[in-house]
């Protein structure tokens, strides 16, 4: 059995509100009543476990996992980081799923009507498990910005979607990673919905250590999930 230690609450200073009118879709979708506080019970403290058998050999490499007759067009990048809890401890063997637009800003999704080209060699989805130190690593191409209809001349900054479980059902996190220096960040109501002091945590940083010579530039994006409510005691007590 895994840890049954309760987790710290979601930090309201870190997360966006339910309704942020500048992001129009929240107006009719964000709940209006206060969340009902309840204690964490067994189902909250457990989580589905995926092993290596669930992950294909190329699942982490978006430049190869959908290649048909060549490589995807675009600026090849490595995106890597550590998944940690609030105590700074690695979250091991947890599933990280990502998805993104292609270099032209077009999603494979059937409802995406943006008239930018699809890339026959790029699907835009990947997954991997973190290692013993909490590291995940993907190879992909830098996604392009794309227009949306939230407001006049609205463009989403380049971003990669992330989905994680962490050690328990309550540590689930769905988020987006952005790129440093993107001028669209200042105009994006989804990014701006996050409290100002927390926004920079969603921006990856260029990392020469992760950059692979003659191959790809590297971006570092660490992710912090809810940590234990009590100081953890090592196994074997």
């Amino acid at each position, binding site marked *: *059995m895994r840890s049954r230690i309760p987790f710290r*609450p979601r*930090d309201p200073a*870190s*997360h*966006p509100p*339910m309704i942020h009118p500048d*992001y129009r*879709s*929240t107006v*009719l*979708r*964000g*709940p*209006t009543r*206060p*969340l*009902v*506080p*309840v204690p964490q*019970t*067994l*189902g909250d403290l*457990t989580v*589905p*476990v995926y*092993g290596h058998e*669930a992950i*294909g050999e190329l699942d982490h490499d978006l430049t190869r996992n959908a290649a048909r007759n060549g490589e995807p067009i675009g600026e090849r990048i490595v995106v890597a980081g550590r998944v940690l809890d*609030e*105590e*700074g401890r690695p979250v091991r063997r947890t599933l990280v799923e*990502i*998805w993104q637009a292609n270099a032209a800003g077009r*999603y*494979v*999704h059937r*409802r995406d009507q943006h008239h930018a080209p699809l890339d026959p060699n790029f*699907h*835009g989805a*990947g*997954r991997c498990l973190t290692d013993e130190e909490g590291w995940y690593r993907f190879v992909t191409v830098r996604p392009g910005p794309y227009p949306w209809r939230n407001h006049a001349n609205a463009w989403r900054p380049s971003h990669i*979607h992330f989905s994680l479980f962490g050690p328990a*059902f*309550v540590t*689930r996190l*769905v*988020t*987006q990673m952005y790129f440093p220096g993107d001028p669209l960040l200042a105009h994006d109501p*989804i*990014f701006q*919905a996050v*409290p100002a002091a*927390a*926004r920079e945590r*969603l921006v990856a940083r260029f990392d020469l250590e992760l950059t692979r010579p003659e191959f790809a530039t590297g971006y570092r994006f*660490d992710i912090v*999930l*809810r*940590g234990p409510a009590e100081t953890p005691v090592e196994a074997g007590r």
Partner: protein
Amino acid sequence: MTRLRQTPSQTVGPYFAYALTPEAYGYAAIAGNRPVTAETPGRHLVIEGRVLDGAGDPVEDALVEIWQADARGRYADAPGGGSADFVGFARCGTDAEGRFRFETVKPGRVPGPDGRLMAPHIHVCLTARGLLNHLFTRIYFEDEAEANAADPILSLVPESRRGTLIARRAHRHGALVYRFDIHLQGERETVFFEV
């Protein structure tokens, strides 16, 4: 030592299907909408419902995830735990009408915070375009009135709102079906938990 600060949540956006529920795109999914197989012990049932917004319109791009114990009240969470016949976790993206559907078994009772058994329930995590934070709720079963009345979590919910957490039973073509609609807003706004 100072604690690290949590990474902020962002919306799942409208275009997650080709990554998180990718069968329709020809890719293998981590989880489908059946956390069980035909051989899984327990009472087999269907849970279906719709996700609706504050105008009563269908939410056509929500991701509904469920996590539950097996019929004996055990979670399949340990590495090598569970079994080929019981995963306990499932995902379903809503369709143009906001509909989702799961085929599963009725979960057994699980001890609650004070050690007493809780009523059978299924944990739900909901994300969608327009949800900047995922939402947690629970599905309880209409035909467990006695257990529901004593459930330590339900008892924390104002009585007038408990009904939003109760799946309604129906029989259809011999199958046991429970109906569970999720209202993001409005008079019947579903109870979502701070957990």
